[in-house]
């Protein structure tokens, strides 16, 4: 994937424009991150590569998960912002759908920087794909630097605990860690809560094969009805909530912060409840 030939990239870009509908091309051309003569920004984000690489994800977005979008205007067009979402579905398609939504459905588009687990850079192809699409290892230093540069970061405070939770616990949020909140307070960035409904049903985990996960150094190895966590075509509902601006010091005790974390977690929970009430069926 790192070495997609120019012809393949060009064809993928055409596919992105076709799936995105009229005006997509003009909108995506407004995406002008800093880039050097080799087409990348200092983190390795390559906008041209990303427009090509999202084609299959955009197909999933339009044709497979048929994403129902609410409140995309709550994502500010510029300035630092932290998007906070629930996490589910064994494989992070929820992250991909949120990012595609912000690229395709917003005018001008907004390229999100999703924070990935620290073991992702050890995965072949995935590591390169992530970097060229603007994703980055979720260290506090990386977040600070990106927020200081007025970028939009996408955080899943539940982490893999949320991603790989068993099916019987679907739509029950795992406790949010306070890290994202400290960063948001430090850089006085607004927080946009995001709720994703549908990802829980894409790959229901029956159980977690822990010994194999340990052997492969994966965070989990869920066994799903399709054996491997290949997603089923559940219908996605992605809801963006109103930006939350919290006041306070990032150096407060965890207990103090927990109240603020609870505000954000409550907002995400509310979005999930709305999405669940809205949907008529898991698959259509």
């Amino acid at each position, binding site marked *: 994937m*790192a070495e997609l030939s120019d012809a393949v990239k060009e064809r993928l870009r055409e596919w992105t424009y076709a799936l995105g509908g009229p005006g997509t091309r003009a909108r995506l051309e407004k995406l002008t991150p800093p880039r050097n003569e*080799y087409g990348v920004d200092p*983190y390795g984000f390559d906008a041209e590569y990303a427009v090509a690489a999202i084609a299959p994800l955009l197909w999933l977005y339009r044709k497979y998960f048929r994403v129902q979008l609410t409140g995309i205007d709550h994502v500010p067009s510029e300035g630092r912002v932290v998007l906070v979402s629930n996490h589910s579905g064994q494989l992070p398609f929820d992250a991909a759908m949120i990012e595609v939504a912000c690229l395709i459905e917003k005018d001008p588009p907004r390229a999100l920087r999703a924070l990935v687990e*620290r073991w992702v850079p050890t995965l072949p192809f995935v*590591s390169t794909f992530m970097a060229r699409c603007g994703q*980055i290892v979720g260290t506090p*230093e990386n977040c600070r*630097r990106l927020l200081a540069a007025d970028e939009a970061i996408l955080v899943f405070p539940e982490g893999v605990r949320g991603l790989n939770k068993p099916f019987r616990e679907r739509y029950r949020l795992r406790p949010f860690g306070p890290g994202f909140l400290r960063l948001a307070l430090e850089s006085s960035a607004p927080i946009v809560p995001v709720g994703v409904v549908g990802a829980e049903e894409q790959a229901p985990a029956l159980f977690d094969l822990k010994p194999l996960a340990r052997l492969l150094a994966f965070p989990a190895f869920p066994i799903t009805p399709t054996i491997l966590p290949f997603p089923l075509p559940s219908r996605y509902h992605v809801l963006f909530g109103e930006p939350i601006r919290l006041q306070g010091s990032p150096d407060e005790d965890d207990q103090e912060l927990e109240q603020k974390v609870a505000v954000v977690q409550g907002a995400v929970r509310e979005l999930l409840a709305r999405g669940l009430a809205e949907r008529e069926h898991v698959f259509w």
Partner: protein
Amino acid sequence: MPSAPITFPGMPGTVIVTGISGNLGRALAKELHTETHVVGIDRRPFPEKPRDVDHVQVDLRKNRVEEAFRHRRVDALIHLGIMHDPRMPFSETHSFNVLGTSKILDLCVRHGVRKVVVLSSANVYGPRPENSSFLPEETPLMAADRFSDVRDLIEVDMYAQSFLWRHPEIETVILRPVNIVGPTVRNAPSNYLRLESPLTVLGFDPMLQLIHEEDVARALALALKPGLRGVFNVTGPGEVPLSAVLRELGRHPVPVPHLLVRGLVRRAFEARLTSFPPEEVDHIQYLCIVDGSRFAREAGWSPKYTLRDTIRSVS
């Protein structure tokens, strides 16, 4: 690319350069000798030495090194006398690097040298999958965690850091430049980039930072600036994916799956088919990108070579 040598008010009058016979040392001598009196120390001879440069040919660990400090007032010392050779017995490089550094720094104290510049490397942080994108100078030096041979490099850096705190009367500057490349450089990154068909790790394409050897010489000269003190990363003209560097140089990479590549390189190294120890694979798999903004801000540093020219300088 000729350009005016680095100079500033308060340029020290006499500067000792250890390791002057190496490629970087010679580039530095060329940069400095028109602006100040340069005295070289190296156990190797210095052929084609500029006439106004003095050379003391002696091993850094020998007592005779002190000759370089006698009969003249030494204002500054630039310590490049660090050796890297994966084929050399570790005890020998370790003794040369660590003992040599402590000896030369002690002499600086004894002879009242006011400025000491030690060349370290951004490799002391080590390429690691969990690295942040831009490592600041405070990052723990974790390179030896995955590659024990670099521990003498880390020890030299740490020794220089403790020297910096123990001797507030001396302005100590520790420079950690990113991968040094250039037409005459023979270090691991340059040798790798010179390969016609270099191995790469299938599915990995980390960002790299390169700096031209002449830019490093200029950074070393700039570090002599009065008032400058501390530890600094030194970056070149930017960050670029490994694949783009190889493409720019017209190389034909041979991707090898990551589960096999280290075993393969180890076999080749043991059979003396390659000069790369298997641990070097980390550099073409994981990130080691540093933040050079402190040196830019405090010393006014900016590289002279563009990204493209820096890359092309290895061919």
